[in-house]
């Protein structure tokens, strides 16, 4: 199926009233959680995932993807108005966005952020639409050894940029692999690590771990200080949300820069939107005729990172949908969602589920328009969300977490496990263990073990099958390089700088 007819089919799916509504709901929720500091898209998707099980898979995917890219729009609002990034990818937007707001150009800054997000978000979806089908065809050549090598490479990249200590990131990943291994063995039906508990024979539900680690861990960490977030005065002058011609002209290259850098970074597992936004900001500054003015409120300092932040979403969907490899905690949760709905992201996804793939692509185009329409007139209203007291917000998150877990299995044992993983998530944050490798290890654990064991069955136990096949050998070599490169001081210094920017 060619791209145009696929896209037409996608629009036919995405434009049904039901799917349009879910796209709107996803974008709205995404914007809200993007605005609320301390609650990221990963936690929100994990919490809402169980509630989507009764929905048609396409509608559910459209809504969850809307939350994912909607959060990126919302994050810019608080960065510009309050100098408080709603999520880590919006940190760099504070530099010039808030300065513009202080000069009475808050409306223009919000307008530029929305326009840049719209342009780059759309470019990201075009990239996804054009690159995904050929990459999926390439992926059809993969057999078990290649899949195993691909997963090792993906995990290595995530480990590289997940935290300051690669040892801790690797340990978190191993714990994820272990949790994935709990339950009944895939091949022999033998029970593993169940402690004799029959409730663990089916393994530990992904939703329990994801909600515990991301949502509860985050909220418990935020409750350390027992203080309401301090509301800063919202600068005036954001009622007129349209930048002037001079400001738009200054941003023309920033729109392109953000779109391309964001998409390319998005395709790479592990890098993420924060690095994309910092890179495009740095690039914009480097090629600018007036680099000294960056940080004082230049519009291109808002356009470049906001564009990159949104274009990254399209890029991140490429390996997720075509190879089944997530590059971050959020896309790992999306992958788990696909699996829970009985779908298998990978090279055959476009072929086997064209309605879902093209429906999602088309909904992302529509979602970008929805976000533009939603955000420009409603920014003053969204800013009011910040007035929601945390002593109400946090119990609500606790409640949604319990309901989310209980609604999946109806098991009180799972809610008890939720408390265990909530504490684990908090301790991981406190001890600087990154959570993304654990979630990725958990999501990929089963597939990774299956691919390895199938490879060894193919070769009758000979491990050399992993490096005697060219594609698999190249990917494993890249994985080894990724893990060894930080031993060089200069590479490690670059890595630590990237992680620092990642927040």
């Amino acid at each position: 199926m060619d791209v145009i007819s696929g896209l037409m089919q996608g629009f036919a799916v995405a434009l049904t009233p039901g799917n349009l509504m879910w796209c709107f709901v996803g974008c709205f929720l995404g914007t809200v959680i993007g605005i609320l500091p301390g609650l990221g898209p990963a936690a929100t998707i994990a919490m809402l995932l169980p509630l989507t099980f009764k929905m048609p898979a396409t509608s559910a995917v459209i809504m969850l993807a809307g939350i994912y890219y909607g959060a990126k729009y919302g994050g810019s609002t608080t960065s510009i108005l309050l100098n408080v990034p709603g999520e880590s990818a919006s940190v760099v937007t504070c530099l010039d966005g808030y300065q513009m707001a202080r000069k009475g150009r808050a409306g223009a800054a919000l307008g530029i952020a929305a326009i840049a997000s719209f342009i780059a978000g759309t470019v990201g979806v075009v990239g996804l639409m054009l690159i995904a089908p050929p990459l999926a065809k390439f992926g059809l050549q993969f057999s078990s050894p290649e899949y195993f090598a691909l997963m090792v490479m993906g995990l290595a990249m995530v480990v590289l940029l997940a935290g300051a200590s690669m040892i801790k990131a690797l340990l978190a990943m191993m714990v994820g692999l272990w949790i994935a291994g709990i339950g009944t063995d895939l091949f022999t039906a033998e029970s593993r690590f169940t402690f004799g508990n029959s409730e663990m024979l089916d393994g530990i539900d992904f939703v329990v771990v994801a909600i515990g680690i991301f949502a509860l861990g985050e909220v418990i960490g935020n409750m350390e200080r027992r203080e309401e977030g301090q509301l800063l005065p919202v600068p005036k002058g954001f009622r007129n949300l349209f930048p002037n011609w001079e400001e738009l002209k200054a941003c023309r290259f920033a729109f392109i820069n953000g779109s391309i850098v964001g998409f390319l970074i998005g395709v790479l597992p592990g890098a993420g939107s924060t690095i994309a936004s910092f890179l495009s900001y740095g690039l914009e500054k480097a090629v600018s005729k007036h680099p000294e003015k960056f940080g004082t409120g230049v519009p291109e300092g808002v356009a470049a990172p906001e564009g990159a932040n949104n274009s990254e979403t399209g890029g991140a969907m490429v390996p997720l949908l075509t190879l089944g490899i997530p590059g971050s905690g959020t896309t790992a949760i999306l992958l788990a969602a696909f699996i829970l709905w009985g779908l298998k992201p990978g090279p055959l996804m476009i072929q086997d589920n064209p309605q879902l793939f093209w429906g999602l692509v088309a909904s992302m185009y529509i979602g970008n328009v929805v976000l533009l329409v939603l955000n420009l007139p409603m920014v003053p209203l969204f800013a009011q969300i910040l007035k929601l007291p945390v002593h109400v917000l946090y119990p609500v998150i606790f409640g949604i977490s319990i309901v989310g877990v209980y609604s999946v299995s109806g098991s009180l044992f799972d809610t008890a496990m939720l408390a265990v993983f909530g504490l684990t998530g908090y301790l991981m944050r406190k001890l600087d263990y990154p959570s993304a490798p654990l979630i990725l290890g958990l999501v990929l654990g089963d597939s990774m073990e299956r691919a390895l064991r199938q490879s060894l069955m193919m070769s009758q136990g000979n491990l050399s099958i992993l490096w005697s096949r060219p594609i698999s050998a190249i990917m494993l070599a890249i994985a080894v390089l990724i893990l060894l490169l930080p031993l060089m001081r200069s590479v490690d210094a670059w890595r630590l700088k990237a992680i620092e920017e990642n927040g």
Partner: protein
Amino acid sequence: MASGRVNRGDVISGAVLAGLGIFIIVESRSMEYSGIDGPGPGFFPLWYGIAMVVLSLLLIAASFLRRAENAKRKPLNWREVGNALVAWLAFALCVGLLKTLGFMLSFALLTFFIVAVLYRKSLATAAITAGSCAAGFYLVFPLALRVSLPTGILGF
């Protein structure tokens, strides 16, 4: 050896993870490593168990070797940790009470505790917040979305 202090968090977490690694190795040794059909259920866990022990020991060693760097770290604020642990304990207690009291009552009690004790609001505010949150959950989940919630001995 460089002066400074050992990062106790790294040492303790390293020891715990090393223990988990040893447990995984011991358990996987009781499973089949390799059979006529290829690798058995003990194959993969054995290798990541070994990797876990090695990495944990490296983490502990690094903590001793990097004492000077550790000295620059902000000391742990035990008061804040205590606050977080109280919040977690309240959540865990709420989960423990689900079977007896049901979701609505346990959740209302959790909300009341968080608002009144952790955020030190008036009892009236706490009661109103707890009541409205529980009612809101009832309206959204069992009523609108038909999601079943744990019920207790009181039947709700």
